[in-house]
């Protein structure tokens, strides 16, 4: 295969895997922000918590990687409800700034707590054999782990799409994102709906955090380091839009990967340039409501 095509395929493949991670981690944030307009800067902390739970389950308790991911998602989803009921709900009507401060405060506390228990050094996770090495797709080899990410991401997208577009609950969520007051007046309990989506979103973030260990490395600063990327995906995609989040994750994932392949020194410049360009033209993101 010619060199140029080879690099292009690598960029697309890695970009796609990265995009899947971004989508899984950000989608919950997008829906909760669309529902309540709540700026949750602690979302990255939920992802980080998920990652550390996976580390503990696999390393200390010897549970396999895949079941650990599921347990982490469920545990973080359940714990997030406590935060939502206890703290977040008091600030639904507060300003953006107050929400930003409360949640960044929580993120700091989370970082400190996890540094205390796990130390600041990045952690790794033992993978099952079939996720290590390469997989041959006929014309060349690809890293198995990234292929697994793409498959898992695609499956999740299909499930989420079905839940969002074809089920009763999904219809309620869409109605509440569109017009919260109207949804409430036709008898939809938006409060409970929000708790549900918040738990689901945090659980997915935890799953993303677990998946990120192998892809990006996991240290306590993960909570803030990648938070910016999640927020960008949400802003570029448009609040509360599944389609938008997916599109934004794909665009940003591929651009970031391409930037790192072709111009390593520029680092994250491309992602931010794309973000600014999109938001200047479409302030509410790809599929957001202006």
């Amino acid at each position: 295969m010619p060199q140029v095509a080879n690099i292009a395929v690598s960029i697309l493949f890695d970009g796609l895997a990265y995009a899947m991670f971004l989508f899984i981690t950000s989608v919950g944030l997008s829906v909760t922000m669309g529902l309540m307009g709540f700026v949750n800067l602690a979302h990255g902390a939920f992802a980080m918590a998920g990652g550390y739970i996976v580390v503990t389950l696999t390393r200390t308790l010897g549970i396999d990687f895949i079941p650990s991911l599921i347990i982490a998602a469920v545990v973080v989803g359940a714990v997030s409800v406590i935060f939502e009921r206890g703290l977040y709900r008091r600030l639904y009507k507060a300003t953006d700034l107050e929400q930003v401060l409360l949640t960044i405060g929580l993120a700091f506390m989370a970082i400190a707590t996890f540094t205390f228990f796990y130390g600041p050094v990045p952690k790794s996770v033992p993978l099952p054999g079939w996720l290590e090495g390469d997989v041959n797709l006929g014309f060349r080899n690809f890293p198995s782990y990234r292929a697994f990410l793409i498959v898992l991401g695609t499956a999740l997208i299909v499930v989420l799409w079905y839940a969002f577009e074809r089920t009763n609950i999904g219809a309620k969520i869409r109605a509440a994102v569109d017009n919260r007051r109207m949804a409430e007046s036709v008898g939809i309990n938006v409060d409970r709906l929000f708790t549900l989506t918040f738990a689901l979103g945090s659980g997915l973030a935890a799953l993303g955090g677990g998946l990120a260990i192998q892809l990006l490395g996991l240290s306590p600063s993960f909570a803030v380091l990648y938070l910016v990327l999640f927020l960008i995906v949400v802003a570029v995609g448009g609040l509360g839009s599944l389609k938008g989040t997916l599109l934004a994750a794909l665009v940003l994932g591929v651009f970031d990967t391409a930037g790192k392949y072709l111009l390593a020194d520029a680092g994250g410049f491309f992602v931010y340039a794309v973000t600014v360009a999109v938001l200047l033209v479409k302030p509410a993101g790809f599929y957001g409501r202006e």
Partner: protein
Amino acid sequence: MAASDVMNGTDRGLARERAAEYLLSRHRFRVAEALPWLVAIAAFFIVPDRMTFGSQVLIMVMFALSLDLILGYAGIVTLGHAAFFGIGAYTVGLAAARLQWSEPISGLFVAAIAAAIVGFITGWFLLRYRGLTLLMLTLATAIMLQETGNLRSDISGGYDGLPGLMFKPLLGAFDYDLYGHTYYLYVLAVLAVVFYFVRRIVYSPFGQALTGIRENVRRMHAIGSPVHRRLVAVYTIAAAIAGVAGALFTQTNAYVTLTVFDFDNSAKVMVMLILGGTGRLYGAFVGAAVYMVLEDYFSKLSPTFWQFGIGLLLVLVVLFARRGVLGLFESVGELLTKGKKR
């Protein structure tokens, strides 16, 4: 208001006079306002060996003050204010390292102008947006500046920065001393000038218009206030002040690295301001001083503990003391005076 409909000429004149009187009375210096300055001067004599740290506190006060202008008065929520601090810091740093322009005071002016230009351009584009979009755009601006610096590390020195900068003696006479006494007084003097300027702005009709925009932007549009122009104006001014703070940072430390553009720096200054109280000028003094002293003490004990503490502090401030430390004092004061009256 219904009352104004039936007002006759003399009443209106009276009302106008009273409004002018009110504005002037707000503008008048109060005795209590001398307190932070007295503390700053007292610190010079009480802890003379900590003046290098003292300069850093004063610089953060100035940085927080510039944020107070846009956040506290105009209600612009930004996550990228470090961009202007960084521009100022690098203007002075690059001028000294690459152009051998190391005269400190003229450096401040150049830094202010450079930061103001960046503030004007970015503000012109970004201040049409609100909410999450604005948060992301301001954040992205700061990071893009940082990445640009990293990309041209042949000029900027990258993350290693520009170490060992040399600056000429102040006014050609006062040189840098080991304990940072000269620079402390220098920073204090610059802060006093900047503060006087900010105070004038805040109590001017322009400042009132900004408060109006913060409280109800639709109504300001409706009464024909040039909202966008005013926001860009205050954003530019705040950028210039942040630039001066950044320039002082470089001059007092004699080095600068790309970390000045960090998100942490933007977040830190916002935390300081919130801690002290927004939209009240002296909130910047209290917040920056309290934060810096606590950080100095606790982060030496344990950085992890400090990070947890500052997180907890933020949560508590949002839940129980939304007007900051100064607001808390006010509330307590009100309670006490109420108690006396009874």
